[in-house]
């Protein structure tokens, strides 16, 4: 749970030289304005000595502070610049001293408890102005229209002020006509508004672009941003790009340096995401970061929608992630969902409507060109197959309704979500329905708290597949897609497995996925003392899925096999349970403060399922819903199976302590001792330590001359994280069933080795150094950070090809070697303009990563990967070789074409040869190109003018290469009865040889892309009682790309060990998407 501590810069005080003292409660201000003359027992009893000559007022205040427990607050600009005093006192009261030195300065003082506040004395301004004073009222809300309690409102230049109540309302008497009201709130931009004749001033507070007092969520707790000593990036919900499928990760693309988020399948509503932090680390299933939702580790993003997210904190370096131990090697993403604020019940309704258009598609020959080039039979039609397999203007909508509110002791946040999405591929749809309830209860005067979250999500998908785009590329364009003489109207042809009508394929089958996701957790927290709390959490995650597949009796597959239909139903589920116990201790002793946590974690994972397949049904219309009626069941040819995975457990003990001295020197240590049932007995437990430190050098005395520096922190850390993402069982020798065998006239099932056992399997370990600097200049108008990291991934876990024997199977899950990632990341934010009508802020991010393979296992000297698919056997295009960077291609080098159109390649000595005259060998291959960008950049710009806001988000990658397999497989003219790219009869028209796996197909991938453009308009709602907020927005994504790359998308896959290939047979269309959104708060 993230808890917002309310802080306020109140006044400056001098302690040492220049230190902002942050007061703990904004209420303080009101109190001092209400208590006009407070008597302080302490001030009367304490006595001071002083001997200052020709001294500034500051030094007098300093002297008071040094001798007493008083803190003195004042605003620098209020002090007369050249005023010098002689202050010589012995055993004087503080009042006495102040009364003397403030004479003639126009300042007065008030004493409140142990604070002394120096303010301007406006009492002598005359009674005529007094008579014009009035009371100003209003409501303060945030961008979403939610009322903001606790906002401070002060008449500028005075101490006259108040704060808003729980409904965001305020009422401030005694405001002069020419007054300027200042509205301030932690994490928000302070606004100044001239009152004039108004008696009602309503304000919408805007969040600060960056604020050093932000609270950052870290492993098992929160820290103030200034206390953070490792690399953590916080993304607020408002920073997520709207539109699209609502997947929060896609909305975060490019917003976190070093975090590569890529869709697995373009804009398909059924796509998932692949995530990689700071280059390739754990390459097996666990390459993505650990996702922790409201403290429950191992969550799925299916359990949270964008609108419900309060913040996303990305723990990038190992010193931050180590407390999550075995699963943090890929980084940790902490998602905090919103919780209700006390107050009136608010209803927020968000609606988004999305459509998309194709941005780029492979240009193949038209029917006329196909015939003209004599590529095959002319069937007389003219079919644009790509057009046939895509939907014109697919329409998607999302609706999100949220209710939130309650009292201080019981607050409820409830959400209902419904979405209907349609992809650009025919037959690609997704329907989603879900809800979330977040509840907070406080019992026994705050001694006990109960915090509960429950999220339920149900999705129904109609699945398409990318084979249709491969067909759209290569099908003869003179073939018709439709045929009126066939009962269903599609042109279905039989015979051959290489070509089919993709339109008929999709519409003559049903491929549905149904799934439900539940994530629920409840925490009981006991605040034992002001400083010590303990809490226990139980969480349950259940994911169930159901696949229903039916191929019609009219489908090509049925006709080819002379059977009436095929049906399959499958069911599976994953059940995780989590128990965690924590104790937290937070305290401050003088200059020392401590924030510590210790705990225990238990997680268990179970999965099981079954499936069945039957064929040849009496009627077509019932599809897969009467499974038993297919004739294959009675003939013994139907399929049936069930499975249950081994039980998996993760158990851990962990702790973290942050220590801060004088708010300048920060030290953090953490450790996690964790065991996993997936390893062999001797290797189950591991320890993951981390240490990091920070120095807020900007607050040091010697920096005081640099006035432009508002904040400057140096930090560095080291940590170890692990990875254990592989299927359970790898460390155990297992027998599994194979198939029938005849023994003594009876058929029995044979049993043998299920997989290669690896007793020696150990944690993958990532050891990472990270140093960084955080800065804020010019009153934090310009802020940013820079990080440098160097990490080594040891004992990388992977399923690799092994020698058989000694292994039984050709793949073993092994610790395969070590990788090193080095890189840097920088981010700069600038709030360039902030005026009454105009605002402009901009953020620029840039990062660089290089991953190098350092070693492989045992005596292995290389490891070949990426076998190119049929047709043909072109070979492997990647060789992992110690010392080489990840992202190199290992292919032959193109040397030209012979006059006959044969390929020429270079041999290992650099001599060109004709491949028909000399056999190419693997030794002739070379490491070429680089799939990993030298730099990845993004640039965000937000401009607002009155009620309009425009956000433009650009991304750019430079210095990477892409292997264009679309060109390779469809760019040559040497085919028959198959369509090809226009290139085949243009730049490749004279090529006669079969494609060669060489750098001819590798292209420069540099690009700049307008990733998102959002225009928003906020309606004036202050005069409408029932409406708190209303805004509309239009977002366009991927609007334009500037690149020389000839394939589909230069934003290629850069995750994993084999980055940089754009595959010909698996590419979802690249689109521009347009979203219209409406948001209303009642």
């Amino acid at each position: 749970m993230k808890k917002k501590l309310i802080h306020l810069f109140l006044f400056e005080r001098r302690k040492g030289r220049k230190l902002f003292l942050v007061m703990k409660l904004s209420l303080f201000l009101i109190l001092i304005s209400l208590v006009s003359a407070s008597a302080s027992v302490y001030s009367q009893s304490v006595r001071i000595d002083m001997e200052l000559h020709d001294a500034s007022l500051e030094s007098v205040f300093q002297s008071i502070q040094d001798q007493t427990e008083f803190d003195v607050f004042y605003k620098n600009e209020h002090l007369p610049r050249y005023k010098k005093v002689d202050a010589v006192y012995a055993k004087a009261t503080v009042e006495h001293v102040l009364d003397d030195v403030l004479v003639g300065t126009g300042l007065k003082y008030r004493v409140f408890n142990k604070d002394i506040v120096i303010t301007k004395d406006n009492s002598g301004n005359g009674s005529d102005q007094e008579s014009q004073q009035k009371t100003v009222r209003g409501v303060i809300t945030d961008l979403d229209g939610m009322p903001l309690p606790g906002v401070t409102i002060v008449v500028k230049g005075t101490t006259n002020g108040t704060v808003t109540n729980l409904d965001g309302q305020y009422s401030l008497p005694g405001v002069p006509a020419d007054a300027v009201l200042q509205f301030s709130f932690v994490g928000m931009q302070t606004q100044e508004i001239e009152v004039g004749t108004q008696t009602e001033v309503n304000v919408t507070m805007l969040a600060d672009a960056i604020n050093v007092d932000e609270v950052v969520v870290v492993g098992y707790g929160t820290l103030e941003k200034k206390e953070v000593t490792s690399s953590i990036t916080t993304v607020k919900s408002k920073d997520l790009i709207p539109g699209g499928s609502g997947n929060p990760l896609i909305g975060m693309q490019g917003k976190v340096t070093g975090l590569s988020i890529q869709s697995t399948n373009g804009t398909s509503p059924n796509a998932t995401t692949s995530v990689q932090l700071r280059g390739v680390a754990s390459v097996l299933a666990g390459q993505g970061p650990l996702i922790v939702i409201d403290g429950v580790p191992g969550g799925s993003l299916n359990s949270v929608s964008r609108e419900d997210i309060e913040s996303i904190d990305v723990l990038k370096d190992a010193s931050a992630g180590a407390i999550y131990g075995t699963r943090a090697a890929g980084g940790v993403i902490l998602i905090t969902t919103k919780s209700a604020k006390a107050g009136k019940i608010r209803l927020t309704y968000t609606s988004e409507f999305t459509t998309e258009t194709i941005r780029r598609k492979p240009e193949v020959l038209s029917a006329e060109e196909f015939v003209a080039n004599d590529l095959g039979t002319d069937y007389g039609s003219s079919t644009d197959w790509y057009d046939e397999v895509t939907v014109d203007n697919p329409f998607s909508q999302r609706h999100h309704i949220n209710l939130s509110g309650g009292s201080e002791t019981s607050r409820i946040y409830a959400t209902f979500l419904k979405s209907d999405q349609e992809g650009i591929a025919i037959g690609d749809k997704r329907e989603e329905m879900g809800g979330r309830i977040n509840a907070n209860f406080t019992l026994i005067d705050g001694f006990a708290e109960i915090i509960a979250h429950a999220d339920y999500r149900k999705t129904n998908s109609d699945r398409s597949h990318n084979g249709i785009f491969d067909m759209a590329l290569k099908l003869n364009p003179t073939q018709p897609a439709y045929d009126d003489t066939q009962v269903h109207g599609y042109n279905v042809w039989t015979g051959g497995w290489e070509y089919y009508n993709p339109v008929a394929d999709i519409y003559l089958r049903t491929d549905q996925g149904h799934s439900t996701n539940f994530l629920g957790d409840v925490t009981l927290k006991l605040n034992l003392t002001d400083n010590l709390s303990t809490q226990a959490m139980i969480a349950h995650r259940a994911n169930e899925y159901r696949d229903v597949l039916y191929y019609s009796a009219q489908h090509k597959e049925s006709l080819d096999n002379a059977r009436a239909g095929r049906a399959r139903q499958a069911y599976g589920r994953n059940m995780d349970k989590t128990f965690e116990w924590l104790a937290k201790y937070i305290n401050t002793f003088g200059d020392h403060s401590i924030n510590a946590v210790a705990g225990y974690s238990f997680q268990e994972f179970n999965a099981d399922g079954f499936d069945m397949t039957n064929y040849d049904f009496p009627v077509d219309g019932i599809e897969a819903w009467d499974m038993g009626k297919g004739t294959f069941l009675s003939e013994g040819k139907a399929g049936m199976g069930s499975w249950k995975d081994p039980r998996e457990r993760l158990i851990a003990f962990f702790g973290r302590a942050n220590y801060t001295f004088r708010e300048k020197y920060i030290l953090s240590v953490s450790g996690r001792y964790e065991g996993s049932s997936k390893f062999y007995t001797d290797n189950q437990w591991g320890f993951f330590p981390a240490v990091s430190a920070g120095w807020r050098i900007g607050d040091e005395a010697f920096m005081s001359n640099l006035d432009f520096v508002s904040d400057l922190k140096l930090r560095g850390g080291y940590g170890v994280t692990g990875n254990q993402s592989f299927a359970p069982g790898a460390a155990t020798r297992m027998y599994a069933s194979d198939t029938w065998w005849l023994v003594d006239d009876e058929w029995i099932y044979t049993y043998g080795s299920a997989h290669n056992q690896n007793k020696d399997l150990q944690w993958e370990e990532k050891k990472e150094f990270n140093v960084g600097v955080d800065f804020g200049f010019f009153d934090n108008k310009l802020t940013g950070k820079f990080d440098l990291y160097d990490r080594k991934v040891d004992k990388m876990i992977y399923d690799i090809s092994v020698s058989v024997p000694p292994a039984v199977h050709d793949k073993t899950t092994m610790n395969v070697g070590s990788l090193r990632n080095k890189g840097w990341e920088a981010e700069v934010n600038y709030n360039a303009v902030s005026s009454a009508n105009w605002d402009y802020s901009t953020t620029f991010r840039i990062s660089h990563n290089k991953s190098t393979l350092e070693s492989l296992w045992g005596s292995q000297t290389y490891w070949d990967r990426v076998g190119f698919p049929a047709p043909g056997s072109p070979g492997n295009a990647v060789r992992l070789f110690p010392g080489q960077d990840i992202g190199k291609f290992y292919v032959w080098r193109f040397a030209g074409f012979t006059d006959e159109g044969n390929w020429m390649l270079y041999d290992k000595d650099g001599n060109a040869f004709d491949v028909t005259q000399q056999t190419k060998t693997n030794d002739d291959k070379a490491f070429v190109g680089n799939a990993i960008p030298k730099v990845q950049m993004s640039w965000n710009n937000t401009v607002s003018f009155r009620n309009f806001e425009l956000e433009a988000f650009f991304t750019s990658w430079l210095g990477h290469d892409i292997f264009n397999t679309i060109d390779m497989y469809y760019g040559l003219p040497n085919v028959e009865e198959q369509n090809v790219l226009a290139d085949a009869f243009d730049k490749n028209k004279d090529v006669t040889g079969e494609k060669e796996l060489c750098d001819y197909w590798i292209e420069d991938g540099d690009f700049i892309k307008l990733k998102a453009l959002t225009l928003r308009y906020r309606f004036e709602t202050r005069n409408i009682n029932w409406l708190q907020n209303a805004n509309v927005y239009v977002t366009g994504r991927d609007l334009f790309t500037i690149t020389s790359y000839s394939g589909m998308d230069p934003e290629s896959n850069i995750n994993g060990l084999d980055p940089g290939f754009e595959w010909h047979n698996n590419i979802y269309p690249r689109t521009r998407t347009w979203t219209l959104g409406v948001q209303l708060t009642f």
Partner: protein
Amino acid sequence: MLLFTGVACTDLEEEWYSAVVPETFFKTEQDVKAALYRSFTHARWYVQEDRWQLQEMTADQFAITTKGPHWYNGGENYRYHYHQWTVNDGWIWQSWRGSLMGVALALDTKQDLENLDYSTVGLTEEDKASHLMQLQTLIAYFYLRGLDFFGGLPIFTSNEGENIPRSTDKETFEHIESLLLEAIPQLPKKAAGEKEEGALRQGAAAAMLAQLYFNAESYIGESRFSDCATICQGIINGEYGDYDLDPTWFGALGFYNNESPEVIWSAPSEFNKLQYDWMWNRFYHYETYKYFGLDGGAWNGHHLQPSRKPTGEIYTEFKLGNPYEKFDDGDLRKKPYVYLGGGRYEGMFLVGDQISPYGTSYGTQEYKDEVISFVDMVATFKKVGDEYPDIASLPSTMADGEENTGIRLVKAPMPNLADESLRWGADNVIIRLAEVYYMLAECKLRAGDEAAAADLINDVRVRNFEEGNDPNPVTAANLDEYRMLDEWGVEFLGEGRRRTDLIRWNKFVNDDWWDHEASNSEHLRRFPVPQDALSGNNALEQNPGYN
């Protein structure tokens, strides 16, 4: 909550559900057999598919021509036909992997059975020895086939240890020899009347040893034909079990071939069990199921290489090849396949118009809606008058197939739907006595005893003709290396051995056939170590000529 933590605080025990650990597996005799035959199910997969392709698609009897838009497959089929395969070609990798995985599986089970006290499952020490020797024989078989494809292999005697380099050809040869010599006396002998259902007996192990000696010249450059002859004679004499030639040509291949006295080793097959069905998709036309009166489509890929030019003339330019016309007229097998009901059938080919009592196959491509008629020619007849002026100008190459191109082999018989329980009833024969006769015949031929050789071959041939009237028997006069190869080719057409026979007679890289010109590159007698294998074990050394 406290209870919850108390129970499971640090318990990391793994719990298993749908698979078992070997320690708890062996409870009954049946469990022992389930484990014993795991590597046999691998062998059953191994003898078909890619190993078959490597033996046949690189030789002179079969081809997968490109048929219009179908089967070009990136030039893969050309590469095998023209002997231009690469270290990345898939069949080669699967054959390497399959050979050594077979060894590993058998070693794995062998180790478990060695450690098992057979008395706890009610079996004897003799049973144990016999089981272990079956596994040892199987290991020898995988090494034997691997040696044939690749030469020397890494020799493992257990699954302990590291990646090891390849042993020499000779060491591998001797390893196989010693495994078999040890196994033979400990294996059971087949008694008369016993069915063959896949277990390994003395006869099979002896035949493997004969195969090893038979090809010793190709494998290690040493002639061991006399050793081969001794063993073959021993098998024929019944020293290794009771076997006999089947009186009919189809007995060893038919629905009930598990009862044939000729079969020495086979992989069992039965409808819906372990179907010997992989050829179906590749050999038959999209609509051949109609001709058979069955269901299930096919892919229309493989067929016999043509015996005739597009004009109809029989090829005389080369001595190999012409597989269909190598069958004498009057050979009972050289007839269209027809199922006669009751498990009886005639003929071994799909040839001519595809009209049967059960149905008619129509074209779906170039011959759309015309009756399919398989021809013993490869040419694009439908392009006459368009791209080509007349039939005489038609080329006949791997690129010139059509949907009716080439004669199709029906080695495993097909019933019609009414007798569907017989479907896939024929077991996949791996070794049969006829092979032993032919090996012995070839040994005699090489030893200069042509008459004895001819007699042995004629003993087999006689069943192929009506009342034994062989129009063209083998004689001492007409038996030479090409006649010997023709006899191998006719009797064992499509049984996955052709490449080995051509290599033994030095024809594989030195002779021409149909669309194939001799490369004269000796290194092509062996396949390269596939790149995937090198990648998995860098200690392996590549075969000469492939670097």
